[in-house]
């Protein structure tokens, strides 16, 4: 650590306005060059300006961000489908169709994604002129799952109200006995309309909403939002702001990984480990309360600022590290637990890459994506490397979490040691319009926020991509060789967010 240490500068983002016909070639060139499609955002600029679609591509390291924008025909808004080259694009396009009524031309699988059957077909909630939400249609047709035919096949419907403390989502299993032939997830039960709630808020007010996108990821979502706002307003935050924010996000990672380690044990009936993990999580939640003033780490990260009450002490961190190690030991030394983890719900690397999964799931399948390295908002130091496992099974996802929790604890200590104050900010926010992008490696994976701000400092659009959105489809692929009773374990090992996905 030296006094000459400087803050990480604002990232560079190139924006291109393309026509519909150019989009495909340009997108393919970027994908071929190693970029991934991080976001497709629809925009309704209102006042007859019509609709616009923004494609965000990113790659790193070094941190590169490219935006392609196309304006759409107001009479028949449509985009050419990129589904054949990018699986993530197929999902974003279905979302565009449901929320904005933008038709993806040539999409091979153009069925609803966000829209539930009882929503009116021609009502697009994200359009400016959508108006009040119409009444629900009752007795609407069920979702058209591609059914598995054949004698003896039956369907196990699970959810949306799950047994246990699980968020709502519907899973449809096509099985013969205990053999899963196919599983389809039907989500968006907790679709509240969060993105629209952002619109019209002053930029400083958006952060409380960002903190409630997914309660367990309050810090990372808040940070991604703040980075996007700062990018839009062209604010360079001081180094200490960056360091304190990183401390908070890493604490969140540790807390959630610990909970997941315990939950994985619980799903194989090893309650003692779960109890141990929950006790440890209570310690971490209380520590969070002391560090930020809120057990879920809310309130510390604000646009242009970061405020802590104190930093975790070395002793506290060492104690947590020792208990994490003990927890992992408890699980790995149990033969039955290991037997359940090993070889269960394998997500092969080619599938992980093709589907574009992120975060823990990707790294457990050997894909070394980590926004802390690809798109750093802070100087994490040279010894931060992605934690990668090759086997792609539940054990790999368990191990990635265990190793990342330990690494994050070390990182917290290092980052906290480098911060010179507990409170830092840029002062007041400038009144300026623009668009900005924020990318943060949350504990689940890379979170991307993109905001557009008008000249008064009000949000005109906020688009949120939780890593769950891109990772959910991989779950059913990983079930290829899995039996029905192992599904909860497989699902828990992914532990994707419903709230963050559904928005």
């Amino acid at each position, binding site marked *: 650590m030296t006094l000459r240490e400087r803050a990480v500068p604002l990232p560079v983002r190139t924006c291109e306005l393309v026509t519909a016909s150019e989009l495909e070639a340009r997108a393919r060139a970027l994908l071929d060059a190693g970029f991934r499609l991080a976001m497709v955002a629809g925009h309704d600029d209102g006042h007859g300006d019509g609709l616009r679609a923004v494609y965000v591509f990113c790659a790193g390291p070094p941190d590169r961000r490219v935006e392609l924008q196309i304006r759409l025909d107001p009479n028949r808004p449509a985009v050419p489908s990129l589904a054949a080259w990018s699986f993530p694009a197929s999902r974003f396009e279905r979302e565009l169709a449901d929320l904005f009524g933008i038709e993806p031309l040539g999409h091979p699988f153009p069925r609803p994604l966000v829209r*539930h059957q*009882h*929503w009116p077909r021609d009502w697009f*909630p994200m359009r400016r002129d*959508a108006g*009040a*939400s119409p009444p*629900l249609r009752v007795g609407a047709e069920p979702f058209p799952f591609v059914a598995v035919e054949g004698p003896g096949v039956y369907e196990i419907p699970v959810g*949306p*109200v799950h*047994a*246990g*403390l*699980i*968020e*709502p989502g519907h899973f449809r299993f096509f099985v013969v006995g205990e053999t899963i032939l196919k599983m389809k997830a039907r989500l*968006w*039960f*907790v*679709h*509240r*309309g*969060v993105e*629209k*709630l952002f619109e019209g808020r002053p930029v400083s007010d958006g952060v*409380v*909403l960002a903190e*409630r*996108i*997914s*309660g*367990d990821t*309050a810090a990372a979502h808040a940070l991604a939002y703040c980075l996007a706002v700062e990018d839009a307003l062209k604010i360079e935050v001081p180094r200490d702001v960056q360091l304190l924010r990183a401390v908070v996000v890493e604490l969140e990672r540790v807390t959630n990984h610990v*909970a997941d380690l315990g939950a994985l044990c619980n799903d194989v009936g090893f309650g003692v480990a779960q*109890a141990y993990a*929950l*006790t440890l*999580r*209570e310690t971490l*939640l209380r520590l969070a309360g002391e560090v930020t003033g809120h*057990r*879920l780490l809310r309130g510390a990260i604000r646009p242009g600022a970061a405020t802590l009450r104190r930093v975790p002490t070395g002793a506290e961190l060492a104690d947590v590290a020792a208990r994490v190690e003990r927890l992992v030991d408890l699980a790995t030394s149990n033969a039955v637990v290991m037997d359940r983890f090993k070889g269960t719900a394998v997500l092969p690397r080619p599938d992980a890459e093709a589907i574009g999964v992120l975060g823990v799931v990707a790294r457990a399948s050997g894909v070394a994506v980590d926004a802390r390295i690809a798109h750093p908002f802070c100087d994490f130091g040279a010894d931060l490397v992605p934690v990668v496992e090759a086997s792609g099974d539940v054990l790999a996802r368990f191990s990635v979490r265990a190793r990342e929790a330990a690494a994050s604890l070390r990182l917290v200590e290092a980052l906290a040691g480098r911060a010179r104050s507990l409170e830092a900010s840029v002062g007041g926010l400038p009144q300026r319009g623009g668009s900005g992008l924020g990318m943060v490696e949350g504990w689940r994976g890379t979170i991307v926020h993109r905001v557009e701000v008008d000249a008064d400092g009000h949000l005109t659009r906020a688009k949120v991509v939780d890593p769950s959105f891109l990772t959910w489809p991989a779950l059913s692929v990983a079930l290829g060789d899995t039996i029905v009773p192992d599904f909860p374990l497989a699902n828990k090992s992914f532990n994707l*967010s*419903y*709230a963050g996905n559904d928005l």
Partner: protein
Amino acid sequence: MQLRHVDAGSCNGCEIEIAQAFAPVCDAGRFGARLVASPRHADGLLVTGVVTKNMAVPLQMTFEATPRPRVVVACGDCAVNGGLFAGAYGVAGSVHDVVPVDVEIPGCPPEPSEITEALRRLTGR
């Protein structure tokens, strides 16, 4: 007191604190409260979150599936009054707009001790 948890549109913050309420430190279980797998086995519902339009019918069905006498606990600000999400286009309302609420636990999210205290009042121990 057996409770069936229903997430009607929560950000999952309340779920964290409910889990902590039943975890070793708070141990709501020692007062006879328990989370169960089926509403048929339950004496009441523990509802979190605003009620989204997509969850309104499932919440109602869960309520109907619970044998009488039954109670409904609305856990967290969103469940009590919609919280920050009141008025969003995908939101049907707070819990009492959909099913009758007997007990409210305010907070965003409520602390485990507050949840435990509310459950303790229900079990009468």
